[in-house]
């Protein structure tokens, strides 16, 4: 009988529950309640490769863990970049972590934006509020290999001009000629010369070939729903649209069920889903 290979001893297997210590190397205030943290390994560690759209579980020691999307450049895996908005105790503790603070990292987890499927096509990114950070790695990747993609259109909506994250970088993107980056806010005073209104209002003006376009959406679920409607009215189909969903993730490895959405575990099967695969669950109340 052929010898069956045995699993490595338990002590050799990395525990899925054990966070790896990272040190906050840089903390940048994005808005009044949102910061971007650059994390570097606290111990000698290999690089931390990830795919655009994936997330990590960040551990504020003594407080708890939260799922936070990776917002950095996949081509620079030596450090981890996360953008965190204060929404509760854990995110508040993470957002308050200054340089030198040790945080725990488990990950990366989840599915990614299907960039390979987008090659040769026009690409539309629609972000609402803190939906831009999970999309930024995809934009970095596309811009680094710009020739592989058709037109790139980004629509980014926020509550007010003061709530726009990555403000300086957004201005740089808006100045580029190889993508069109539109920003819009829900309300503004006269000092704002940009657009005011919902991201959906910008969809009819997209300069893309609807039959040969892929859309990546991230933001509040109601925004996703109405944006998909607008994209369909533009001539796209729901299976051309991918969304990043947010649920209450705890284990992040598809065991605990906290993030279950119908038959899907958002942490394991998502957070990036093809919209046509999950749309029926998004209308189920209490799900």
């Amino acid at each position, binding site marked *: 009988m052929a010898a069956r290979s045995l699993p490595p001893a338990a002590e050799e297997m990395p525990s899925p529950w054990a966070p790896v210590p990272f040190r906050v190397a840089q903390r940048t205030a994005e808005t009044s309640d949102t910061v971007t943290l650059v994390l570097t390994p606290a111990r000698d560690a290999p690089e931390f490769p990830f795919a655009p759209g994936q997330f990590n579980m960040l551990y504020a020691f003594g407080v708890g863990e939260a799922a936070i999307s990776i917002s950095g450049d996949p081509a620079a895996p030596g450090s981890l970049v996360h953008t965190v908005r204060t929404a509760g105790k854990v995110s508040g503790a993470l957002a308050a972590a200054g340089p030198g603070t040790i945080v725990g990292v488990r990950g990366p987890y989840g599915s990614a934006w299907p960039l390979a499927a987008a090659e040769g096509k026009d690409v539309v990114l629609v972000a609402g*509020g803190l939906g831009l950070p999970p999309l930024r790695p995809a934009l970095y990747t596309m811009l680094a290999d710009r020739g592989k993609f058709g037109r790139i259109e980004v629509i980014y909506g926020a509550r007010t001009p003061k709530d726009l994250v990555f403000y300086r970088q957004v201005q740089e993107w808006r100045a580029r000629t190889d993508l069109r980056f539109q920003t819009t806010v829900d*309300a503004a005073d*006269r000092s704002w*010369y940009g*657009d*005011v209104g919902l991201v*959906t*209002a910008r969809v009819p*003006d997209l300069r893309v070939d609807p039959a040969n376009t892929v859309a990546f959406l991230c933001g509040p679920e*109601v925004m996703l729903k109405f944006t998909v409607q607008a994209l369909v009215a533009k001539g796209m189909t729901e299976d051309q649209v991918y969304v990043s969903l947010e649920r209450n993730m705890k284990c992040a490895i598809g065991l605990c069920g906290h993030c279950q959405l119908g038959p899907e575990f958002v942490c394991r099967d998502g957070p990036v889903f093809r919209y046509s695969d999950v749309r029926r669950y998004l209308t189920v109340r209490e799900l």
Partner: protein
Amino acid sequence: MTAAPTPGALRLAEHRFFVGAPSGLADRLEPLAVERSYAFGDTLVREGDIADRFVLIYEGKVALEIVLPDRPSVTIQTLGGGDVLGWSWLVPPPEWWLDARAVKRTRTLELPAGPLRAALDAHPDDGYAFLLRLLPVVAQRLDHTRLQLMDLHGR
């Protein structure tokens, strides 16, 4: 603002509002249209004034503003090329309920309310078709307003 009718420069039939409209509707209204151009900062309409026209925006950007006493004006929406401004001329009392200000150089075609209503009254089929074009605009603005009220991006 420059009221500079330059016939032929802009055509009603080419505006998104009339795309898919019954044949001839835009052409029948074309003689009423006045082309206008607004520089940055020009006011198109002012709250409280008589709503005397229907404005079709071809290019540029227009901010719809609500003036608040003792507070800075609030921009609640911006409109651009392909959008239309104003149904107040159809709703009594016909007065503007907000300010509209050009925040980019803006070109429009404008249909004066009186002659437009007369034309639509005289040809009810055209009137019905026109309202079928206008109602989705109103409904979309209402939907957007509801979503803005939900403060989706808030805490």
